[in-house]
């Protein structure tokens, strides 16, 4: 049976100033369930309500209406004991070094974590060598890593990461993605928001697309992206007379190699047969489905 770690129903968050009549909807009737053991990716354009949702779950903001249940509705302090949070663009005490910072956050979980465990966590995020370096001297990537470490320090069941891959270089992103998958394989549930769709596509089990404070689309990646083949790319070699190929699709001629994109399945089968008959060689046939990026853009524009 699937256990719901987070259960959000009809969540509304209105931002209003006491001196202004204008009300802004941060979230407008959002529903979301996050299941135990999954990596859930929260997608959406800027201002869609991703960060607001994560802040309500972590207790940084209070909802205007609706309900947020964690582990079936346990007390917030109890829930926070089982939760680790990495905020967007995190900021930490600049006067502490990496080790001191983790000791401090560990004590906020009511734990006196041993040096060995602290070093293990720092090693996991690749900061073991920077153990005595002050946070004020950390680079952006190192801040993100120590942020990940502080989210892990209480050994939480649920990790909530707000734009964890933002501002990282490709190597840093790859390492952090691997880390997310590693902690997930250890049994932790991960909920994270991101703008980088390829990263979400690479590591998430399920995704939810938030637009203007509402959940527009939610589901398993394989279901969301399970659409018909949109076109097929065929790579061909050994054809001298190329002109006849044009009637089967869009052609790109690169000398010995020809790339043909066919939009029609019947035409695809026919052209493959003709190529063989005319002495040509098929190097590859690649059916193309909708990518998450295309799906995301389509949802945003709907």
């Amino acid at each position, binding site marked *: 049976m699937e256990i719901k770690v987070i259960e959000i129903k009809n969540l509304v968050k209105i*931002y209003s100033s006491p001196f202004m009549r204008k009300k802004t909807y941060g979230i407008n009737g959002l529903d979301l369930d996050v299941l135990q053991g999954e990596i859930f990716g929260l997608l959406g354009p800027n201002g869609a309500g991703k960060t607001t949702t994560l*802040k309500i779950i*972590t*207790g*940084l*903001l*209070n909802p205007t209406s609706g309900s947020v249940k964690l582990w079936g509705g346990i007390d917030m*302090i*109890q829930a*926070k*004991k089982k*939760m680790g*949070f990495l*905020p967007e*663009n*995190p*900021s*930490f*005490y600049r*006067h*502490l070094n990496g080790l001191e910072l983790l000791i*401090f*956050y560990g*004590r*906020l*979980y*009511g734990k*006196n974590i041993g040096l060995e465990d602290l070093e293990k966590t720092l090693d996991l995020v690749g900061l073991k060598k920077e153990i005595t370096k002050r946070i004020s001297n950390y680079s952006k990537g190192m801040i993100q890593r120590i*942020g990940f470490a*502080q989210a892990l320090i*209480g050994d939480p069941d649920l990790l*909530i990461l707000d734009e964890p891959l933002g501002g990282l270089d490709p190597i840093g992103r790859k390492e952090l993605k691997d880390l997310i998958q590693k902690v997930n394989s250890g049994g932790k549930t991960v909920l994270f928001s991101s703008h980088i769709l390829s990263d979400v596509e690479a590591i998430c089990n399920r995704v939810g697309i938030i637009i203007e404070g509402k959940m527009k689309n939610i589901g398993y990646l394989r279901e969301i992206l399970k659409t018909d083949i949109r076109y097929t790319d065929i790579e061909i070699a050994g054809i001298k007379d190329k002109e006849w190929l044009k009637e089967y699709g869009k052609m790109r001629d690169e000398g010995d190699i020809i790339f043909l994109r066919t939009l029609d399945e019947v035409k695809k089968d026919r052209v493959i047969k003709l190529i063989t008959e005319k002495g040509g060689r098929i190097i590859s046939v690649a059916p193309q489905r909708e990518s998450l990026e295309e799906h995301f853009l389509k949802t945003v524009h709907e």
Partner: protein
Amino acid sequence: MNKVLAISLNTFKESVRDKVLLSLSALGLFLIAISKIVVPISIGQANKIIKDLGLGLVELFSLLIIILIGTRILYQEIERKTIYSIVSKPVKDWEFVFGKSLGLYILIILIQLILFLIFIIFNKFYLGKIDWYLLNALYFFIFEFLFLNAIAVFFSCFTTPITAGILTLLVFFMGQLTHYLKDLVVLLKLPELNAIANFLYFVLPNFSVFNVKASVVYHIPISINSYFLAASYSILYSIILLSLSSMFYSIKEYL
């Protein structure tokens, strides 16, 4: 309690490294050191004037630390967004507020002890003997600034550091005059206002309960009741103010 101590220790470490504190401490030491300049102009009253001046300086610098650092300790957490990683942890609002307040208070006590030690050494140097009776003033300072610290933290919960600093300063100066409220009613011959004056006298912060500087300088005995009153008044009022601050924090949101 472990969480309160962790937050207070962190606040203490953070405040110790504050450049404002360093400048204030240097200025405090300098002024205590040059208090010798009053000796030639003191017309035989050097003993009392140096003591009075020294005690005044310890009080002034403690006040400045609270105004310049104390009113910022909570605000900085929000401004620098370090509070995100605190609020999302299993920390209760009162643990955060009491922890921050305690951290600053430990710093103030430490600064007062250092300034007092230097003050006593200079006393020995200028006046030839150590006046241990001065330590009575330290006892009252400790409770006076426990109270003032809570006032600064309370104001900083819902205003900017500058406003909180001004309000704290106002309360401090008004609190020096609260005990005149009862006299004022008598002086103005308005007995019908007696009840209001009495109410305000007990409710408004009254800093005169901590003011024993004259008794200390002139070696006038201080009653045991005064010690008890200063401690209980300060502790009770501080708990009330910090509890109210915690309530403010429980409804606060972090955008």
